[in-house]
């Protein structure tokens, strides 16, 4: 399962990067970024997964003593939790930028969103 998840995540990352590199519309670029982000999260969770194990929550089915041999790695999950929220914050700020840029130049074309010359 890990393999598939990792491969899928990696492809998602690449698709996201592709979007960031080739799309002209900045909203699309931000979409590309969020795909990239999601792909990363899939990779992270996939990497923490161990075959035939369960979620790291102690309950009646999962006594504390047996937990170590039956649960998946909790650390990547914790990291992803954080990463998702961070990703959201970044996306939000990017979107705010995009909106502001659109309002000032009436275009979403990234190649036109730069100063007249580079001086």
């Amino acid at each position: 399962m890990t393999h598939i998840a990792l491969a899928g995540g990696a492809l998602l990352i690449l698709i996201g990067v592709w979007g960031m590199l080739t799309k002209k519309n900045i909203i699309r670029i931000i979409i590309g970024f969020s795909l990239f982000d999601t792909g990363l999260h899939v990779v992270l969770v996939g990497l923490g997964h161990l075959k035939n194990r369960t979620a790291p929550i102690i309950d009646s089915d999962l006594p504390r003593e047996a937990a170590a041999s039956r649960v998946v790695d909790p650390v990547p999950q914790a990291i992803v939790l954080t990463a998702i929220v961070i990703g959201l914050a970044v996306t939000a700020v990017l979107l705010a930028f995009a909106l502001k840029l659109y309002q000032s130049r009436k275009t979403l074309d990234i190649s036109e969103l730069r100063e007249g010359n580079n001086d």
Partner: protein
Amino acid sequence: MINPILIIAIALGTAFSLGLLKKLGRELSFAITLIALAAMAFISAQWLSAFLTYNMLGPVVTTAGGRAPFVIVLQMGHMEALFTLLINVMGVMGAFYLHDRLTENGNGAMAVLLAGIMGLNGIILTGDIFNLFVFLEIASIATAGLVLLVTDFKSLTAGFKYMLASGLISGLFLLGIIFLYNTTGTLNIRELLIAVPGTIKAGSVASFLVMMAILLEMKPFPANGWGIDLYSGAPAGVSALIASASATAAYFVLIKLLPLGGTVAYKIAAAVGITTFVASNLVALSQRSATKLLGYSSIGQMGLVVGIYGLNYHLGSKAFLIIFSLLGTHYLAKAGLFWLSGIVQSTEIDKWSALRKSPVLFVLFGIFVFALMGFPPFPSFFGKWELIMGLVASKLYWWAGAILLGTMFEGIYLFRWFSRALKLDNQELAKPRSTIYTFVPPLVFAILLFPAGYYTSTYTGGIGIMGFAPLLFIMLIGFLDFLPAYIKNILSIAGVAAYSWYLWPHVQGNTFKIVFAGIFMGGALLALFAGFYRRGKHLGFYPTTLLMFLGLGILVDASNLMELFYGWELMTIGSYFLLIRGERSLPHGYSYLLFSLGGSLAMMFGFGLAHASAGTIELSALNHIHVLPALAYSLMLVGFMTKTASLGFHIWLPGAHGEAVADIHFMASAVLLKAGVFGIILVLSGMGNSEPYARNILLVLGWIGALTALIGNIGAAFQESAKYLLAWSSIGQLGYIVFGLATMTHLGWLAAYGYTITHFLYKGILFLIIGGIAFRVGTADMYKMGGLIKRMPFSFLAVLISIITLAGIPPLVGFTGKWIFYNMIVSEHMFYQGLVVIISGIVAFLYLFRLIHVIFLGQLKDKNRRVKEVYPWLLIPAYAMLIGVMVLSMFPNTLLGPLGRMLSTAFPKGALHWDGYTASTAYGTFNMPIIMAVIGSTFAVVFLWLLLANRRAVKVKQFNIFYSGEAPSRPELTHFGYNFFAHYKKAVGFMAVPLVTRFWDQVSEGLHALAGYGRAIYTGNAQSYLFHIVGFVVAIYLITMGGLS
């Protein structure tokens, strides 16, 4: 000890509470923000002071009450304390500067700032790699927010690009982190560093990704377009924060994490860093926008320190000293410059001349620029010195060369900027507005640069207290700049006298040092005395003059190479400010500085080789260098020759000197140039002439000297301005000296020393008097003068005697030099170079004659009918030197005797033999007193006879002769004195073609073209920047990892 985690807690608590404080008003919120930042700074400071006082290990602070590797830990050590202190101080200052912007935007903005600074602190303190990632994100998102303190299109695009780029980079970082965790099972950095070499085989892609991310955070070339746009797009105060605080924190990440990548990471960092340094500075050459320039420069500087960290194993124990000094200078100076850019309110570099309307701000500007360029007494001077010494000692020549090249590029644009700000017209421009908020931070940082420099020097050694103490005096004079000139003049003379008093015991007994100390200090006293002729305040003159003379004093006093270089650089700064004072001297002062800089860098490399060879920086290291000796000596000679204005490096001189006023011209030509001679003597004494390479170098040097003499003198013959004439003449005279030294014979050196001293005297007279005349007449163009002999008889006499001396006409002392030259030429069979030197001596006669004739003789101009004699303040020093000339003329053995005795130890063969007053060599003899007596008495007899015969002659008024048809419209065309030697020009004018100038012009054009190509990659398009980032990662991956493994 205060728990360092409180830094984070204070920042966050304050940031969160700002939301509640809205009602209380923004000023109060601002004050609370400042207090919070200050508290953070205090925590760092008290840790740092504890570390410096007690030799202790920093604590590891665990959170959550858990066991160390499994919970997030914070590390507080020496480095952390220092770095957080830097960041928090910058936080306080930056926030203070941003007062207007912050209060305008409200509490949210202040909270963002606090959170950003907190993030940077977290980056440094945290001992957990994912936690570091989180703090990085906080910092970068806060940065993007701060950019928006001013919302315009520029800052919007800049922020957007930055967000996109940093999003991509942090994605890669996260990927690397998780795979590192996957392979090592830990996120604790310390554990990772232990685990990495064991569990990961070489070429771990995970650590590669982490490494790429941290390198990309440093904005490496070419994947840094977003960084440059950020610097130029952000409001000035924010750019300052980014350049100082963010870059510093990012650098600390590099220090912390680079070891994860193993040795290859260091190599990559070195290559990437130095490439960035060179390329950014190259690209910056064609920039006209101040903030962009600063952006490139910041990126370049950070590239440099990254590169140094990559090379740190080669630098040994000095590595961190170097890093701290360079980083610290960058931190202070770059912040200061960005702050100033906010005050100037124009990104156009040419508009910075407006800054002159606020002199204090302008002084700060100068301090920052010179600090950035590694001039003493700032920390970067010591850093750069140790860097080059270390690199060269480790045989990393190409690295050192690249760094020097990059520094040169940086100098070109920074100094162009500074020079233009210093000289361009600012009538039209508004005075820059600064408030207390925008004024204090740059002031504080500028002041901090000085103690920082001193502090750094205590770690490097080499410079004693006398390298710094006089600077305090100079600063005092600087503070007193509002006083009238004569008071400052008196103070300055006292200062120089005191320094001379200090210097005397150090040079006593060493003829070589006495000669130069005499020229430098004597020159200083004479020049300052002459300075009494000025009226008004003469702003900025005294500090810079004293700086130059201090540099010269240190040069003589130097007991090691570092001190020598220190003095040299101080002298360069001081002299630059003197030379650029002239009316039209902008391009000349600028090129002077560039040549000086290039020379210094070459010299530093040479010193590096000397140090590598001898293992010490004592002056004795110059003797018999055996590491690349030919290169070492050549570089040092080139370095010193930039100051003697030898052929190829002479193009700065005529303009720079020609535009200077009397006393400055005197200092620059008669005194300053001798510093180069001093250096060449040192180098040649060390080199000797026994090795084959030495002979080749000497051959080239000899030709350079000879041709310099010729070109200088021919150039002088074609000048219309008396000052330019004298300036060209100085080039020629220095050519003689270089030639004499290059012969490496007793006579050659004797002549060189003789010229050094006599040139000081007779040229000194000429500079003072011609300068004084130009001041009186209001022009230096000779054809606008004429007939001044009646108005200025004392000047005339002094000029007459000095040109007789200069031309080498017996019986005055100039002849002695010529005579020695002839003897040397014949005895050494140096006919060809000798011929060139002799020809130039003859050419000298042409311009000298023109000088005296066109100024003093001929027809008096109507407007000069009432012109007065030159100020006595100028005449008195001139006549003092005149007495010197006469004494030496009559008794040349008083000068040549001691010099000969000194030289006999180095060159026992071919010494001048003295028999009473008769000097003789194997070839010729001369007896100056007899020559003097014969010629003098003949002269007297004939003169008296003539006077007697014409005792009843009636004096004719000067205007009692017909006016020889000079058309008033364009008088210079019809004036006989204009284009005096036109026929000469027709015949040999090809030698005056400015080939060298053309050469340097083309070098500069080429560089700019290159810069243009480099700049083409910075399209301003965010997407291209993303391309660069991905391309950078992939390319380095393919290069270093070679694909599959």
